[in-house]
């Protein structure tokens, strides 16, 4: 399959890329790993006028683990899987990366591309929401940060404004003793999440002191399961409380339906996967 013709420029800096994007925000597209965009071009579901290659921009690279954690948008799934400093602080990146696609795809696909594309079944949106991440966006006139939970607007739709580029993901360093889990029911063909659950949890004297649960795959955008978190705070992580959190999350989810999984089935999976994720953190 051959894409329709387009022009190509290798951007030399972030401001160069933003300038080119601004020239025609609808017709020009960014490309980094290309593992969503190139298949889309081959199917001719997209035919941009210009591809702006941002893969050589150093500012968009790197994993920094300090008082805060910064992950550059160009970081590949394979780099996230392999990073030992990141695994020590936020092992959920290793857990989730290991479930994404296959080794060759992980070598090219980037976390920034996954987030900016906002596929409702992508894995990273749930992870960055559960970690209370902020996304750093650079535009023609300003730089801003937006909470990950507010970034995903709808299917393939984000809060990125015309001319804006996702630069990096920032996360607070978690409390000592924080526990993490990413689980998903994998679509057998695509590998995407039919339902994915990212959960972070702190227990103090067997009582939940902090918890955040985020769901992907089930609905038109990844979301934070706030009612479940509110229920769990200040309570022990008992079987009954886990069941209630799972049920509340299921109620919150307005699930998608497709030929593989009906909305009812997805809702069932949300409850099951939230239960399993939380149970796995009990005593972990």
């Amino acid at each position: 399959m051959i894409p329709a013709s387009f022009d190509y420029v290798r951007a030399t800096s972030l401001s160069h890329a933003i300038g080119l994007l601004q020239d025609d925000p609808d017709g020009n597209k960014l490309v980094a790993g290309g593992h969503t965009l190139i298949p889309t071009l081959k199917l001719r579901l997209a035919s941009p006028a210009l591809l702006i290659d941002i893969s050589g921009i150093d500012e968009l690279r790197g994993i920094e683990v300090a008082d805060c954690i910064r992950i550059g948008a160009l970081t590949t799934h394979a780099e996230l899987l392999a990073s030992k400093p990141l695994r020590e602080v936020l092992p959920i990146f290793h857990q989730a990366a290991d479930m994404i696609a296959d080794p060759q795809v992980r070598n090219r696909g980037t976390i920034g591309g996954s987030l900016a594309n906002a596929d409702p079944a992508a894995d990273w949106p749930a992870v960055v929401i559960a970690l209370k991440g902020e996304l750093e966006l650079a535009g023609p006139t300003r730089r801003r940060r937006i909470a990950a939970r507010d970034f995903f607007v709808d299917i393939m739709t984000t809060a990125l404004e015309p001319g804006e580029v996702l630069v990096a993901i920032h996360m607070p360093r978690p409390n000592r003793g924080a526990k993490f889990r990413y689980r998903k029911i994998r679509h057998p063909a695509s590998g995407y999440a039919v339902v994915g659950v990212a959960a972070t949890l702190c227990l103090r004297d067997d009582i939940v002191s902090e918890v955040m649960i985020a769901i992907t795959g089930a609905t038109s955008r990844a979301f934070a399961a706030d009612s479940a978190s509110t229920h769990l705070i200040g309570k022990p992580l008992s079987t009954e409380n886990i069941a209630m959190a799972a049920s509340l999350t299921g109620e919150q989810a307005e699930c998608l339906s497709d030929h593989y999984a009906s909305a009812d089935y997805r809702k069932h999976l949300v409850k099951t996967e939230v239960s399993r994720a939380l149970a796995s953190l009990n005593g972990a």
Partner: protein
Amino acid sequence: MTDHTEELHVVTVDVNGVRRTASVEARKLLVHLLRDDLGLTGTHVGCDTSQCGACTVDIDGQAVKSCTVLAVMTSGSSITTIEGLARGGGALHPVQAAFHEHHALQCGFCTPGMIMSVRQMLGQNPNPTESEIRHGLAGNICRCTGYNNIVRAVQSLASEAPRHD
């Protein structure tokens, strides 16, 4: 759909140790550069949808699916294809020899991609367990062998005695 002027881009890559230059349209896929422009037809197009791994090549030390890479984006890279493993018809690469020895292929269509993936896997983990081998080959589909002999071939290359899961 707008027609854009088909401006050609000069791509210079090191392929199997030889510097190669080609003028390509931006839309040209790496697998087509390798097969059609450079005559390296050992890299196969299977599914053409980044699933099957038959087109796997090594770019700067990483196994990638060349049907999902724009040739123009690889300029300046070093690429190794299956032809680069046993150069000049010399001795087979150890992974090739192990596939031969363990009958790890039937029709052979997936084999070049399979071997390029195994090469990367063993570079990162010289002593994989069976489940690590199967997980590591998740991006390569074989419709003949049932995978068992492929796994045996990889196990025969492990640096130590078999490790169990």
